[in-house]
């Protein structure tokens, strides 16, 4: 009996192992390896055990805290605006209008195009002297802005571009959620004489709340890992105004080759995002449910 079970397990593993080996080797075990490596100093060659020094250095590392602050600023700038705008667009698209699939295709276009290419396009739009945005500002009588070269504006410029890039994805998710709300709810509300605002407030918002929560957590997690825009548009500058946590990690690991120290950053990043994921799962199980 026991033998038969083992045989079943082994034959199933024949199918699972080729793929599972890849996942475990490159996407699971390395996180423990990162923890192990964070107790050492050195590059690829010799490394020396230093205990928790990398972590205690991290606590006093002003650049690390700045990068964390910049990342949080980016997340706060991107996520709520994206949610509000994409919900509005999804509502407009859901109002039984013609040409739905054309609009959907257009709004989704920035999402599939590579972040590197669109970063260059926006860098050109943001250009201080010849950029179109400044020409438009001058045209309506405002002072031009040095967008990517002004430490007060650089992150805002990256945020605006990132909202444009990611909007369509969330529109699709919200639209799917809106289409899942039973029509009868609106019909009976209309019979009861409820106006559009009341329907939105008392049916749409509560019914869509699981989707909103999903979008909120997923965008927060992916915004925390922002990198390519920064690399392409500002290289973390001016000064360190747009150095986000992954850019700081990249700089420390692959420019300065401090693999031990950067492993510590990587592990902290993992803990932050893992905590957010766990939080999402807890809430998703308990709190967010249809209110009726």
């Amino acid at each position, binding site marked *: 009996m026991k033998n038969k079970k083992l045989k079943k397990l082994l034959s199933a593993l024949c199918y699972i192992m080729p793929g599972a080996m890849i996942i475990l*080797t490159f996407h699971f075990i390395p996180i423990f390896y990162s923890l192990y490596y964070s107790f050492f100093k050195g590059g690829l060659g010799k490394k020396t055990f230093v205990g928790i020094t990398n972590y205690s250095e991290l606590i006093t590392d002003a650049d690390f805290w700045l990068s964390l602050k910049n990342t949080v600023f980016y997340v706060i700038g991107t996520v709520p605006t994206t949610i509000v705008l994409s919900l509005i667009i999804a509502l407009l698209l859901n109002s039984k209008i013609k040409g739905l699939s054309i609009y959907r295709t257009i709004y989704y276009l920035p999402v599939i195009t590579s972040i590197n290419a669109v970063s260059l396009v926006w860098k050109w739009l943001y250009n201080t002297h010849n950029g179109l945005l400044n020409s438009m500002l001058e045209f309506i009588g405002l002072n031009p802005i040095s967008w990517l070269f002004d430490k007060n504006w650089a992150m805002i410029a990256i945020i605006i571009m990132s909202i444009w890039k990611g909007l*369509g994805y969330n529109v699709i*998710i919200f639209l799917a959620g809106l289409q899942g709300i039973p029509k009868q709810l609106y019909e009976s509300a209309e019979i009861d004489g409820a106006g559009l605002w009341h329907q939105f407030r008392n049916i749409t918002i509560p019914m869509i709340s699981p989707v909103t929560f999903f979008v909120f957590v997923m965008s927060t997690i992916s915004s925390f890992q922002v990198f390519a825009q920064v690399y392409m548009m500002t290289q973390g500058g001016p000064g360190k105004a747009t150095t986000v946590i992954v850019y700081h990690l990249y700089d420390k*690991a692959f420019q300065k080759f401090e693999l031990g120290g950067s*492993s510590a950053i990587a592990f902290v990043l993992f803990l932050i995002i893992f905590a957010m994921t766990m939080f999402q799962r807890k809430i998703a199980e308990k709190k967010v449910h249809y209110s009726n």
Partner: protein
Amino acid sequence: MFKKKSNREKFFKTIVHILLIIGAFVMLFPFFWMVSTSFKTQSEINDNPTALFPNEYNFNNYRQAWKAGSSAGFGRYFFNTIFVATITTMGQLILSSLAAFAFAFLDFPHKERIFLLLLGTMMIPQQALLVPDYIILHKLGWLDTYLALIVPWVCSAFSIFLMRQFFRGIPKELFEASRIDGSSTLGFYFRILIPLSLPVMLTAGMFSFLGSWNSFIWPLIVTSADELRVIQVGLANFAQAEGTQWGLLMAASTFCTVPLIVGYFFVQKKFIQGIATSGMKD
């Protein structure tokens, strides 16, 4: 009364269309500007930066950008990207579907536990794995080879999950019947399961291909040789070398995005369905 309502509705719909068209304009304008600038000469850009259309449509910027200065050139970068994306996608389809098959059709001890372990790996952010993966690839001697670009991505928990969900909709009796008819397990997989699963294969394949085509930070760190660069890394390097030659940069951006946009128009319906049901980006 009836007429009044339909007038109101008409007005309402017009407002909705106006808002959506404004939004669509904002979404599309950067692409228009990219293509428009790509045909302009540098002096044209300096003289009249706000001209909506170029004076004439010449492809000099494209020719010059394609060669990408003294580097291997975008021809090579395109070859690398297509090669890596194709092999990665084929690997994803084969390895992930084999695993998904076992989870959907076979009975074995600890099935749920093994599945959850694999699924749990999706909670680990990719950026946190860069440093340890880099060290592992160094130890394997794979840095600066195609292996580093391909092998870590030939299977993903997401594809396994997506395919298992689909496979579970296929009646188990089909599997049992084919066994009774004397077909082997692999025979069922190749002759019955895969032909029935083309929709999910297409969805998973598109996600994988797009992810591979657009990936940047991974190829940036695991390769440094010019002839191994993929499009995204090539474009980043080209941007650093050319700085403010906007005509050239926009030409390069255009030919790096157009193939994907064209492909997207062909499969967009399937693709958007895939996102709406799986909630996955790349």
